[in-house]
């Protein structure tokens, strides 16, 4: 009898422990509210400007903003959400990263408010949206930054300093060049090792698009599939770093961060060799390997949900600063103005 009682007591204790862990966590969550407020002020990075925007008072907004989509755009949206929720304290802005395609799918099912995209919405997705009650005319497309791809080689590679678009296409098409000498007779007759991002990534899609490697259906050659493919840019860097015959590509933002140990190939899009950089991507000379990044929403959402309107308004106001901070090329003023005009109609006068 005594025994079973003791056992019951232990079971109770276990239960108590579990719940006390939960309570403890909740409690320490509550404790630090004041700490947080203090931590905000010294941040030189705080992007918040005025709390009012054309009659829209951020501090009076409430509700939630759900953002999902491209993992390329995620860092910008995260930065915006972070700063926005500091100003609009009544709003819960949440950002997920299930890919451009996944974002549009959820967006068309009306599960999210804002869809991050590293390419414009395609016809299939437009149709899906229309079928679900978001007509094409209601889609609001806002460009928020520019991304650029960087073709990289190992620092030991002394010959491939600059490549033309045609050479890149020939290199990365299925059944294309296998030796460097296939691209340029003066280059060594050694086998090229190819590295590229996984087929699910927006970077891969964008590269195919830019170099016209979309595959049979569009009467173009397809992207080669006999190289090393990885979703993790680190793997690409590590592979290319030590091999003088390796070539690969990834986002400019990544190159400027971790990829610097590699050598960026200058790209000749018809007007001479251009090295990838913030400036060349912005002034449009680094073609065709720079691309626009978007967020999408719908007219109905902007009319119904003030929080989303406020979020996007804040997004456009701060994207120049924030996108640069997280490693993208920010929009030029004129282009930004065009985006803001698209939103202006919904803002209260």
């Amino acid at each position, binding site marked *: 009898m005594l*025994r*079973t009682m*003791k*056992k*019951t007591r*232990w*079971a109770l204790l*276990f239960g108590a*422990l*579990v*719940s006390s*862990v*939960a309570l403890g*966590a*909740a409690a*320490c*969550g*509550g404790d*630090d509210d004041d*700490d*947080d407020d203090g*931590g905000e002020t010294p*941040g030189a*990075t705080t992007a918040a400007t005025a709390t009012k925007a054309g009659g829209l008072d951020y501090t009076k907004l409430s509700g*939630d903003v*759900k953002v*999902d989509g491209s*993992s390329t755009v*995620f*860092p910008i*949206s*995260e*930065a915006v*959400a*972070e700063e926005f*929720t500091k100003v609009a304290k009544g709003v*819960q*802005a*949440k*950002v*997920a*990263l*299930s890919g451009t395609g996944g974002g549009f799918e*959820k967006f068309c*099912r009306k*599960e999210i408010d804002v869809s991050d995209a590293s390419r414009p919405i395609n016809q299939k997705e437009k149709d899906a949206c229309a079928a679900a009650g978001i007509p094409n005319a209601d889609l609001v497309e806002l460009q928020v930054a520019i991304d650029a791809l960087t073709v990289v080689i190992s620092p030991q590679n002394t010959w491939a300093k600059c490549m033309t678009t045609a050479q890149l296409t020939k290199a990365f098409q299925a059944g294309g060049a296998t030796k460097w000498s296939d691209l340029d007779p003066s280059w060594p007759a050694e086998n090229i090792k190819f590295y590229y991002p996984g087929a699910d990534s927006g970077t891969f899609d964008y590269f195919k698009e830019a170099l016209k490697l979309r595959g049979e259906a569009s009467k173009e050659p397809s992207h080669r599939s006999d190289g090393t493919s990885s*979703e*993790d*840019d680190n793997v690409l860097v590590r592979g290319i770093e030590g091999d003088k015959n390796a070539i690969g590509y990834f*986002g400019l*933002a*990544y190159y400027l*961060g*971790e*990829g610097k140990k590699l050598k960026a190939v200058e790209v000749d899009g018809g007007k001479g060799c251009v090295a990838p950089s913030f400036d060349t991507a912005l002034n449009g000379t680094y073609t065709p390997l720079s691309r626009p990044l978007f967020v999408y929403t719908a007219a109905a959402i902007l009319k119904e949900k003030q929080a989303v309107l406020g979020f996007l308004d804040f997004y456009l106001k701060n994207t120049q600063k*924030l996108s640069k*901070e*997280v*490693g993208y090329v920010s929009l030029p003023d004129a282009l930004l103005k065009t985006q803001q005009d698209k939103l202006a109609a919904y803002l209260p006068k």
Partner: protein
Amino acid sequence: MALAPPQSDQISLRAQGRVARRQAFSRLSRYILLLATLAGIGVLAVLAVDTMVRGLPVLDWQFITSYPSRNAVDAGLRSSLLGTVWVMGTTIILAIPVAIGTAVFLEEFAPKGRFTSVVRLNIANLAGVPSIIYGILGLTVFVRGVELQGVTLFPALGTTILAGSLTLALMILPMTVIASVEAIRQVPPSIRDGSLALGATRLQTVRHHTLPGALPGIMTGTILAISRAAGETAALIMIGAFAFIAFDNKSVNEDFTTVAIQIYNWTTRPQEAFRANASAGIIVLMVMVIGLNLVAVLIRERFRRK
């Protein structure tokens, strides 16, 4: 069989020929097996040390209590830690009673027949299903809801803690059921028979004798399953769990993020500083899981001593 004549007056006790070879191999096998053990431990040690070296400098109170941020230095685990505690708590509440109920039914009440053996086989198979499959199930059933010809079979919950917990609960159920069944089987039949012979009902027997006896084993299995759920990422990403959440969860009907998702998010970032954050996140998650395991071990030892 004639023994070879001893070469000296003393009979050598040392084995010869085939026997000697076998014995030598037996002695050697000890080192081979040790090597196998060390291989596992070695990899674990390297990983642990590497994680510690990268993560410990970042790990401080500020890291635990800050929301996610674009700046690796400001980023923290506050919302994800809370999310993990909520999701784990709800998962435990949802999964454990069902698991123990299933195990008790299968072992104590169900007639031994084709039906139970089919159920058993299925549970064993389910334990091997990859977590992403549970994620897809969670997305279509719990997040989006099931509606058949206008009748709501399951309400759409959205990407909430409840939906996440239901998904994880389904994921860990098979493991927990199997562990509980094994634990209940370990209880000697004589205890059951004695109880029944004294006039106790079946339910009384289960409540007062079988379950208390099986509890340590059940606990061990449960904690292992919970640990697996704590580290789960794929299934939660699949159902659309968020990566940036800057508020504290207050109910199961809110969107959430977890420590595992945060670690995944940080490892995909190009900046080295986020890697350090990921390592620190791993340390936190490890401490949580080891803590849970420790509790289970303590309880089990306590019961065993009786």
